[in-house]
């Protein structure tokens, strides 16, 4: 199987998986994905769309950052154990659930 047909097969599998969910489950999943992506986008003002910063940026890119690492860093900013210029002030405004959502999103986004 060449690369293109493998890709097509994966897409078809994905479509059939989506189609096999009930309408409500499908709506719930799609809504959760939308809300999670929009929540993570609150970081993009500084850290770039989907966590990709402009070239040469001193502000770190978040795309592909391992989830466990990111959760630990955000919580370290929040409890003051990791010093920062601004992130200690931002993270104190986030719930643990939002930290989890944001970290999951960037970990799942491919570099």
């Amino acid at each position: 199987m060449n690369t293109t047909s493998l890709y097509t097969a994966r897409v078809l599998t994905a479509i059939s998986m989506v189609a096999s969910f009930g309408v409500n489950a499908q709506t719930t999943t799609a809504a959760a994905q939308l809300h999670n992506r929009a929540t993570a986008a609150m970081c993009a003002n500084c850290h770039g769309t989907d966590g990709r910063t402009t070239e040469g940026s001193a502000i770190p890119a978040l795309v592909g950052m391992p989830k466990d690492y990111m959760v630990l860093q955000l919580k370290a900013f929040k409890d003051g154990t990791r010093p920062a210029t601004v992130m200690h002030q931002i993270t104190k405004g986030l719930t643990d659930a939002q930290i989890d959502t944001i970290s999951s999103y960037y970990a799942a986004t491919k570099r």
Partner: protein
Amino acid sequence: MKRRSFVQASMALGSLGALSSMVGCASVGRVPEKARVVVVGGGYGGATAAKYIRMLSNYQIDVTLVEPNSAFVSCPISNLVIGGSKTMADITTPYDKLSGKHGVNIVRDYVASVDAAKKTITLASGPTIRYDKLVMSPGIDLMFNTIEGLKEANTSGQILQAWKAGPETLALRQQLEAMEDGGVYAISIPEAPYRCPPGPYERASQVANYFKQHKPKSKVLILDANQDVTSKGPLFKKFWADNYKGILDYMPQHKVIAVDAKTQTLKFDVQNDVKAHVLNVLPDMRAGGIAVQSNLANVNARWCGVHYQTFESTQAKDIHIIGDAIMIAPLMPKSGHMANSHGKVTAAAIVAQLSDMPVNPEPFLSNTCYSFVNDKLVVHVASVHQYDAKDKIYKTVPGSGGVSGAPNALEGVYAWNWAQNIWADSLM
């Protein structure tokens, strides 16, 4: 497959939806009869909303952006052009990526009128566009008529505002360059709320830094209608005392009521007149003209009331209003960063509503605002605003947010990188 389920399936598939729908959708300047979403105004709010409605719908919802300018010129960083350490090119970003990369249909025009009942807008050039959802990001209008003589003095180019970045930014820089050493630059500040609370103090700092290096006998006067510096007060005042002593004077409770362009004089409600060689007068502000004219500025006839969860107007269904034009909840600054945040919350709400999905019950907004006190050192203010479903308003989280400890060069680097990243996030 029905449209609704197609949108949801393509969301589940992520990039496939993006790839398949990107082909052939990058037209520019086409005036459609109908767009699912029309966005009015391509600033930090509108450009972000347009881009993110495209992205968050996996490029399934068509978006037409109406914007008269050919390129985006940033208000943040524009004070550095006035101070001389950045250029207009540094703060200018073209709109071509919004169309070419994201498939936003850009119509270069003004909106002449909005018909909320018929759900149409009419362009200044004549055509009408129907919409399912309208996003208005009209920015601010300067209320020149609240200060006697200011309208004429600004029209003639003698007394500038430069509060909307663009030609006046460069013109103000040229006035400062042309001023002889020993002259006085005076900036007047209106009562809050106005666009960019720390902006006037940053601008005064930039001009003082320019004078200190190039025109050491010259002075900066800040004439503030407010009781005290409205943002980052202790940080600005300490830096002024340590670095601009004898150059910069701050005068609170000075409300300008008239200007005399012939004699270069500011008149106040109480205090004595002030004369200066370069006058930079900022009058009261309100929501951009198209919002006022469309009866959407329903708070004190100045600002647009919105339902904060979706930014839908409290006045008209299916019209969402974002950016500096809205009536803010307490502690929500009128800033570019906030407008970008409004744009994303609104984009997600509109994608949800057009796809029959529930709107996010707990959105939040973030704000980070950097001010340069000279050409390298920076102070910031940051805040997080969580939506409170019970009170239907954004509230800052106790213990969150704050300001810099002191002006520092590290944040000078971050501030410039912030600008580059938010320009890319809003426009590219």
